[in-house]
């Protein structure tokens, strides 16, 4: 019978009203994300509060010649590592983004190893490479690496480069290969197409990769401890200083150095990012 069939007329759907506001949605996002922001800010405030109640002791540690040395070595090694990382990450990121070849999945996995490997294992592997293979001869007689400053840079480089490669691959993935192809049809060689068309477009991504590599290098600790050691005034970078201060029971010194690292990192990252305006070739 026709009466038994259900017909829903538009005027019958009265229980629904159009949403008046999206405020609840945005409040949920803010509250959920806000927990993490709150955690970061609370940690920093706790550090600042702790240092302010132990100002004299923290100040003495920060102006000590050991920490001054560690600060300069950290800044220098991070900058060298960043340059070296970009040196390998730009070609690798470009190749991984543009070229299809057999074994690409395997190479991709190899490039990820430093990211998911425990930091201590990276350090241990570097130590084995330089002490248990023919490289030991070079290490002992020609160019000392293990437990010297080059070990600091190599340990930072081993990890930081993996992050730079990943960032740059994503950058090159976002740049359409069409522009390079057009450049080739205009008479450019592969190198000219890369340097004149792709490289300027990738500038922001390169800066992001540099930032990633620099920040990773500054915080690197595990591989350094194993491969470069923790000798004061020799291979001591800021994370090692924190460790040495904590080992000696001087928590106010350790927290002071931690805050110094936060300050230096924020300053450098702001400087790098503020110079990251779109690069124009001409």
């Amino acid at each position: 019978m026709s009466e038994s069939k259900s017909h829903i007329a538009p005027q019958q759907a009265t229980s629904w009203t159009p949403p008046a506001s999206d405020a609840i949605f945005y409040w949920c996002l803010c509250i959920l994300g806000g927990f993490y922001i709150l955690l970061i800010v609370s940690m920093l405030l706790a550090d600042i509060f702790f240092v302010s109640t132990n100002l004299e002791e923290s100040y003495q540690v920060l102006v000590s010649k050991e920490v001054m040395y560690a600060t300069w070595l950290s800044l220098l090694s991070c900058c060298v590592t960043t340059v070296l990382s970009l040196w390998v990450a730009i070609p690798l990121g470009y190749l991984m983004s543009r070229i299809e070849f057999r074994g690409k999945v395997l190479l991709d996995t190899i490039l990820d190893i430093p990211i998911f490997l425990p930091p201590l294992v990276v350090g241990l592997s570097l130590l084995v490479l330089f002490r248990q293979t023919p490289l030991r001869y070079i290490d002992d007689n020609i160019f000392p690496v293990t437990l010297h400053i080059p070990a600091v840079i190599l340990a930072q480089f081993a990890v930081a480069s993996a992050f730079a490669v990943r960032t740059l691959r994503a950058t090159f993935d976002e740049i359409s290969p069409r522009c390079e192809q057009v450049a080739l049809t205009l008479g450019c060689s592969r190198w000219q197409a890369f340097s004149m068309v792709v490289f300027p477009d990738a500038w922001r991504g390169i800066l992001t990769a540099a930032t990633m590599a620099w920040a990773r290098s500054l915080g690197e600790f595990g591989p350094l401890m194993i491969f470069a050691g923790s000798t004061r005034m020799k291979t001591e970078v800021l994370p090692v200083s924190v460790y040495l201060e904590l080992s000696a029971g001087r928590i106010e010194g350790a927290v002071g150095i931690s805050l110094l690292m936060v300050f230096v990192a924020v300053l450098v990252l702001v400087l790098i990012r503020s110079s990251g305006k779109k690069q124009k070739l001409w």
Partner: protein
Amino acid sequence: MIEVNKLFVKSGQFQLANISFAVPQGEYAALMGKTGCGKTTLVEAIMGLRRVNGGKIYVNDVDVTRFKPAQREIGFVPQDGALFQSMTVRHQIALALYIRKFPADIVKQRVDELAGLLQIQKLLDRYPEGLSGGERQRVALGRALSFWPKVLCLDEPLSALDSETRQQMFELLKEVRAHTGVTALHVTHNRDEAEALADRVLQFEDGEVVEISW
């Protein structure tokens, strides 16, 4: 002229087999076909951007099948313009001439000439960001014509334009053709475009390119 002879191109599961056609010197040909039939693949093969597995491609009677894109001397206007984001319009048009080491005064003269022809004088010092679709295609056309190519390949250059801009581009392309005498292969799936511009219409049918008349 453009001559494609028994061309075979394989790309993954897709392939073009035994494709032959010719566009005589100075003619404007429209290449039509459904989406996914291989129009762009064919243009890429002619431009040297895709590996050819068999057959020959001749440009002005020269076998360019194994030539690099830079050696073919074919102007290319891609679908979205593919403008270089970090170069001003002036430098995009001048790039091919810089690469060929033309003197600065010749480069300037050529850029000004093309800017006049394409009515983009006011855009010369702007970057691509913020240019309209029609402006982008004019710049891409200027860039492709900059090095006096005898052959031009246009890959659906008007597909993203509104009808008014498209009409303007029809007139512009006719003017360019009259001014340069270039041989053109214009890929499109739009019949109006082919009717308005082409001397001959080539159609992809059952994996072959055949000449049709309306």
